[in-house]
């Protein structure tokens, strides 16, 4: 058996090396750059820079729009999943068709296509003027960015919610009905609480990419609306101020860590539940 152990240690070597070299060290570099100035002296100025009006505004706007987008994703995804689970005949292939297949069209192109739909002479406004209405200003607005976020990240909300809803034991729902709960009570007291792990996982999976995006805002915001992602991207790719860019990223990292902690706690809870359930079955 010692031989097997030695072999498995040998197999693990490249992975451990890889994780150290390309996951841990790069992240430490972000911390290092974020906490030093261009001469390498320790400073908190790069992190404190988040309080500058332009940066604070970009962060707050990003928070606001990503929370909105997460809420919209939830409001669209939950009823959709309820419907899909109840209809039952709609199998996984339908879900793949709806959510995964579109991913095979490059996401930059898909987001860019919304420009043609939303712009001044785009499809929606052409239609509006044709029926005698005033054209709307749709592109380069906060609303367009939220739409782009929802469009891109909706699958991350649908899949986990669908999985938990599908896993709910139909007998539990029937039992609630038999015990006299009406539809609303069954939903609020049984279905929704049981689906909570999926909901939380969906929320955490949508919120972070939405909060940190710079692509959606630069494609649908016309370069005028800056989110925190745009600010960081510009510091790195245009201004070459890596220290400031890293400092601002550390602020984002804080949100990411909170997010991960929330999802880990919720997963623990789910595992606990599952363990108790299998204990009870045994």
């Amino acid at each position: 058996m010692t031989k097997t152990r030695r072999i498995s240690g040998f197999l693990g070597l490249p992975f451990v090396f890889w994780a150290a070299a390309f996951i841990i060290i790069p992240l430490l570099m972000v911390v290092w750059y974020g906490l030093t100035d261009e001469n390498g002296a320790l400073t908190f100025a790069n992190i404190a820079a988040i309080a500058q009006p332009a940066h604070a505004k970009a962060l707050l706007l990003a928070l606001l729009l990503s929370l909105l987008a997460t809420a919209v994703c939830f409001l669209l995804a939950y009823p959709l999943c309820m419907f899909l689970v109840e209809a039952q005949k709609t199998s996984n292939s339908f879900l793949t068709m709806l959510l995964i297949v579109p991913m095979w069209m490059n996401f930059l192109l898909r987001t860019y296509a919304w420009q043609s739909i939303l712009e001044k002479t785009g499809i929606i406004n052409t239609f509006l003027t044709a029926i005698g209405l005033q054209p709307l200003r749709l592109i380069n607005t906060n609303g367009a960015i939220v739409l782009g976020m929802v469009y891109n990240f909706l699958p991350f909300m649908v899949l986990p919610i669908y999985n938990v809803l599908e896993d709910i034991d139909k007998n539990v729902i029937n039992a609630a009905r038999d015990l006299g709960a009406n539809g609303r009570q069954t939903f609020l007291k049984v279905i929704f609480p049981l689906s909570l792990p999926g909901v939380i996982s969906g929320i955490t999976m949508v919120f972070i990419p939405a909060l940190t995006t710079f692509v959606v805002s630069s494609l649908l915001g016309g370069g005028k609306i800056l989110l925190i992602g745009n600010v960081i991207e510009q510091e790195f790719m245009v201004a070459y101020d890596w220290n400031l860019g890293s400092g601002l990223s550390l602020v984002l990292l804080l949100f990411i860590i909170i997010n991960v902690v929330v999802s880990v706690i919720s997963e623990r809870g789910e595992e606990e539940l599952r363990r108790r359930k299998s204990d009870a079955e045994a």
Partner: protein
Amino acid sequence: MALIFLFMYAPIALLIVQSFNKSKSRGRWGGFTFEWYGSLFSDESIIEAFTNTITLALLSSLIAVVLGTAACIFLTKLKKRTRSILMGVANVPMLNADIVTGISFMLLFITLRIEFGYSTILLAHITFNIPYVILNVMPSYRDLNPHIYEAALDLGASPAYAFFKTVLPEILPAILSGGLMAFTMSIDDFIITHFTAGAGVQTLSTKIYSEVKLGIKPEMYALSSMIFLAVLILLILVNRVQGSSRKAQEEEV
């Protein structure tokens, strides 16, 4: 629900229509044409970006499959505590925001004075692909009966031979789905590539992003429509085959 379908597919339909549009400006319909599907193949920069995208996805998912599968074998042998720490580290690229992963690679390559190019993108793609492989392979590997492998060893098989004969066939489906997931992630990635590509090398994503301001070339619409339709047809075929084999199985039973 039909509305959500429309919402997901309207931009795609528009892009496909655009690929047949004679007019180069995207607002106007200038008549139907196959022109872009022809000129696509003589546009070297698009072909090169396409080749880069595909080879990066193939290489990175292949290497990630090897590293990730080896990591699964290694991880299951560890004590629970060490294992969960290492798993946590391996999952970092999946949980982290792409922009942070991207800049962390950028800073690493700057500090080590590694020249940005194909190899830096490849390193980054392998790294963010590994967790998808582990995610798929780990449950399947853990469910294996270890006695079969041990029996093979007792019967005189070398560890490598025993692995390829008893373990690998069992976990192969999981490896394939992990590899496919990694391949898709790599093809679809823009953000991490953006920060690790440098000036010389382009993938389809970075090329599209750099063209956005000037207007995207219609050849790009043509290529993307072709990729999309190819994958769609492939999926439908796979579905058919799976469906009929399942039916055949059911009939046998």
